[in-house]
């Protein structure tokens, strides 16, 4: 497997180098300047937040292009560098157990990659400037190469970033497992051995969809936080269910009570420097890295409450601010809430309007969006029906219901053949996202043996015909960001939600289909 991958990488590298040779002067003469510029300009790190200014700034250096070879920065040609790094990445992703030293290596690798990425961004910006002046085919070829480079770097970034998270081990045990999930989606690479390959492919898809770099980096951080989010969400749900039985004697814990406004505030973590708000602490920490090197240390990036674990602190429990609520500390039978997330969900569920309506059944309403998503997952699939009209998602629940109530009887669909058709209709209904998912992978699976790297080139080649669409300013439309920001569900929860992980992506996809290249790829 490894060997094969390496071969792929080599061929790819060779391929790339050949192409590089053809237009080496132009390809080579940009990066030194970029390099200098980059370190001087702190706003570059801000791309996640303020795209427009950074974009402008990025385009500035493209005006003048000095003749330093581009590899002075990386000490190798990009292609060679890729080769080595690919191997590194395979190595990294194979490490199943998380340990800090690997994390450090990965982090520095990430850092290096981000630098490369920045170089490329500069390059593209430079290209754009040139395109205006010289609309010839050479430009298109160069852009193709750059894009190829870009995509692979981003792919590596994402996969390495994924392996960084210590929590990944708990939920997924390894990145390859998560990649395997995607692999199942694609259907063409099910074996776990193909895990890394699959993950690279997946990321590539993202890369193709969103070739603009700032966006990509944001995606990386998002990727990480989504995972985090998923874990926290999961825990909190369990806890809220479980703490019904918790019997802490009063006084053994500290009661905190948040105000209503605090609970309903969209963001709870704010950047001390720029003031941007975040829902999660991890998001903030990711963001903080952009404000300087001091925030990039492992200590700064680590989960803050882990440090305080040495000294025993009083257990924290939360009270609901709503007077009269059982979760309010003044209630006679007060039952505290375990975490802030519990407080939030409890408050929204119990004391707020249910503003989210299920778009499928148009009857069920929810105040917590996660609840809606959970419901939507099985909405319409409640096929176990009682004569009283109640539906159940599980047969044993229906039978429990029937056993309990006199006169209730299992209701069998009037026409059983119809019900069979209905089931297949369900299948078709859920196929829609499915199809989107598989399309995203389809062009990956057309060359199953070649692996992700070759694939990478293929994709880029296709898109070369329409460079304008690929680099069109449309891509910087905010909807792309929104798509990823708003996307509420953890990417790796299960196969179904992995559809939806792709779903917003594919929405973006269609959104910017101003370029035919995209639609062509879909076909």
């Amino acid at each position: 497997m490894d060997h094969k991958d390496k071969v792929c990488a080599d061929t790819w590298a060779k391929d790339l180098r050949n192409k590089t040779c053809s237009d080496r002067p132009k390809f080579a003469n940009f990066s030194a300047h970029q390099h200098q510029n980059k370190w001087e300009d702190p706003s570059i790190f801000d791309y996640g937040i303020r795209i427009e200014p950074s974009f402008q700034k990025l385009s500035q250096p493209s005006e003048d292009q000095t003749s330093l070879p581009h590899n002075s920065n990386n000490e190798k040609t990009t292609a060679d560098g890729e080769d080595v790094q690919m191997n590194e990445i395979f190595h990294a992703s194979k490490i199943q157990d998380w340990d800090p030293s690997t994390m450090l290596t990965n982090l520095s690798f990430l850092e290096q990659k981000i630098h490369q990425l920045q170089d490329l961004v500069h390059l593209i910006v430079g290209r754009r400037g040139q395109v205006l002046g010289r609309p010839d085919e050479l430009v298109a070829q160069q852009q193709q190469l750059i894009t190829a480079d870009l995509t692979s770097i981003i792919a590596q970034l994402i996969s390495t970033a994924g392996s960084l998270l210590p929590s990944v081990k708990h939920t997924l045990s390894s990145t390859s497992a998560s990649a395997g999930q995607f692999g199942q989606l694609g259907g063409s690479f099910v074996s776990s051995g193909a895990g890394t390959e699959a993950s690279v492919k997946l990321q590539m898809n993202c890369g193709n969809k969103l070739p603009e770099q700032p966006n990509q980096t944001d995606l990386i951080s998002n990727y990480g936080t989504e995972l985090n989010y998923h874990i926290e969400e999961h825990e909190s749900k369990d806890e809220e269910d479980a703490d019904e039985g918790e019997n802490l004697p009063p006084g053994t814990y500290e009661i905190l009570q948040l105000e209503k406004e605090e609970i309903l505030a969209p963001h709870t973590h704010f950047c001390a420097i720029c003031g941007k708000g975040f829902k999660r602490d991890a998001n903030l920490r990711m963001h903080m890295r952009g404000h300087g090197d001091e925030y990039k240390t492992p200590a700064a990036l680590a989960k803050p409450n882990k440090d305080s674990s040495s000294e025993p602190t009083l257990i924290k429990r939360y009270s609901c601010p709503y007077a009269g609520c059982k979760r309010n500390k003044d209630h006679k039978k007060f039952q505290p809430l375990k975490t802030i997330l519990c407080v939030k969900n409890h408050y929204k569920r119990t004391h707020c309007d249910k503003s989210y309506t299920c778009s499928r059944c148009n009857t069920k309403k929810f105040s917590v969006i996660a609840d809606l998503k959970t419901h939507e997952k099985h909405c319409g699939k409640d096929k176990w029906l009682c004569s009283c009209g109640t539906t159940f998602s599980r047969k044993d629940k229906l039978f429990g219901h029937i056993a309990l109530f006199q006169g209730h009887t299992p209701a069998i669909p009037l026409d059983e053949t119809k019900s069979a058709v209905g089931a297949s209709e369900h299948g078709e209904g859920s196929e829609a996202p499915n199809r989107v998912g598989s399309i995203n992978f389809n062009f990956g699976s057309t060359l199953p043996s070649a692996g992700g790297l070759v694939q990478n080139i293929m994709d880029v080649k296709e898109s070369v015909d329409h460079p304008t669409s690929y680099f069109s300013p449309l891509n910087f439309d905010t909807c792309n960001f929104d798509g990823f920001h708003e996307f509420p569900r953890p990417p790796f929860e299960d196969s179904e939600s992995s559809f939806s992980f792709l779903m917003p992506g594919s929405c973006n996809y269609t959104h910017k289909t101003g370029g035919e290249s995209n639609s062509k790829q879909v076909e």
Partner: protein
Amino acid sequence: MATTTELKLSPPLQSIKTQKPISNTNFFHFLSDELIFIILDFLDSNPTDRKSFSLVCKSFYSIESKHRRTLTPLRSDHLPSILTRYTSLTRLDLTLCPRVTDSSLITISNACKSNLQSIDLSRSKYFSGAGLQSLAVNCKNMVEIDLSNATELKDSAAAALAEAKNLERLWLGRCKQITDMGVGCIAVGCRKLKLISLKWCLGVDDLGVELLALKCKDLRSLDLSYLPITDKCLPSIFELPYLEDLVLEGCFGIDDDSLAAFKHGCKSLKKLDISSCQNISHNGLASLTSGRVLEQLVLSHGSPVTLALADSLKRLTMLHSIKLDGCSITYAGLQAIGSWCVSLRDLSLSKCPGVTDDGLSSLLTKHKDLRKLDITCCRKITYASIDHITVSCTALTSLRMESCTLVPREAFVLIGQRCGLLEEIDITDNEIDDEGLKSISRCSELTSLKLGICLNITDEGVSQVGMGCSKLVELDLYRCTGITDSGISAVARGCPGLEMINIAYCKDITDSSLISLSKCSSLNTVESRGCPLITSLGLAAIAVGCKQLVKLDIKKCINIDDAGMIPLAHFSQNLRQINLSYTSVTDVGLLSLASISCLQSLTILHLMGLTASGLAAALLACGGLTKVKLQATFKSLVPQALFEHFEARGCLFQWRDKFFRAELDPQCWKLQLEDAIP
């Protein structure tokens, strides 16, 4: 109860019948309908008697129509007219109809309304929920429905059935498409259920059965054989207050832990069948001891019968019947069964490899009251065992000892000497000789005697049986090559009540045997395979004499030809099953057979004189066929559309492609048979 009075009453009635047309005085007008009804009640033994009665005159016809309660129609086509004639039917048996559709059921339900209490649909799969719904809605007093083998029935049909609120007995064997949902509907709808059989309903599991046990508290009998149930549903089953008969055969999901729930309930259970449940050991059986009234236990093909297992059952004080067929059994286990304080009436040890002389003796010293003993294929037992059995169990009525190959011929003399009450003996494949048979002929109560593959017996012994056992109903002489016409004629003379005879491969039998057998007017089954000397003449005699003939097997009787078929077609109007393979029958014979309206099963392999057109014509004419076994070559010769038509009528085709095999000499055949047995 009624049998004795019936015997006394039937002769005068027959004389009345014969007198009626002669006297020509209408003294029957003085008899009220009710009185004639009472007389008719005793006419059940022979269905043709009722028919002749109804054909006497119009008033008799109407009386018979009003009197009849049960009906077994042959074709569903005639149902409308039949149902208008018989207005007070309570039971309808449709097992002989090749095809029962929804429209038939709707006709029935509209004609019979709430009179109908019982319907048997166990051999048809062509109806659906619509027909059942009509039955359930219109026949409010329906108590009993048999839907076995309705493999196409779906849950919607079960839901329709749930409308029959008074249903008490329901058979759903092999209704494989019915799931928990359907059973749930029945459980909620039919609250009065006392008996339900869900054998082979593979779609039903714990949830459905549990709901059934929760909702139908009147259940007496529950058959859950081969269901994928586990210990989840058993506690609620064991809590049923009146449950008497529980069959859990082949429920592989049930183990010792499941039976532990038995401790807390089921005080009423009388019969438990847990055969083929491999996961139940003596630990699980120990929990059965709380079942105080348990009378019958079936542990066949289960875990080995050891000391521990036998001990775990010894406190079952009401137990009188136990079946251990196919279990490996130890000496200690048999000894422990011998030390139980109960006295067994019925013991089955067939195909138990561990049964020895010592073990059987130690068991039987205690259980002297044994009535039924099955030691089939206990190949280790010898003279000593038979000696012991006959000394201890003198009250034995049934002894099955097929293939006890080590038992010498002298032992069989003891059986006749000591067990005079025997009614049923199976000595197939044994060393018995004429002396033994002579001794057995003393058992004057004998009704069933099976002597298949007993190569040592001759006419002498069989003649003794014919003289001694006048109540004989069933005689199996399969491959008894020493038997000739004189033996058979002695049996035919001495046993007028004979209903079934098997003379297959008794190659010396000729027509004279059949002619003498034709005196046995109750004969319904004749198997005479491989008797090359039998001709159409003998068959004609049987056809004329034995009007009750239902099943006839004349395979490899190569001298039987069309001449035999014509009298058969004319006289044996009750014939349902015939095997004509390898005979000399041609198109003509087959076509004449087609006039037998009852005929359902036809096996016609290797008929030299049969052509495709003859076959097609015969099949077309024979509307009641349900099963035809045919040479595969005909598949291409007869138009496919025709076969589709037959199948639509409810006929199933079984295609065979076997080569013609020459007959082996009997000794050689037996040697081959012994080789085949491990």
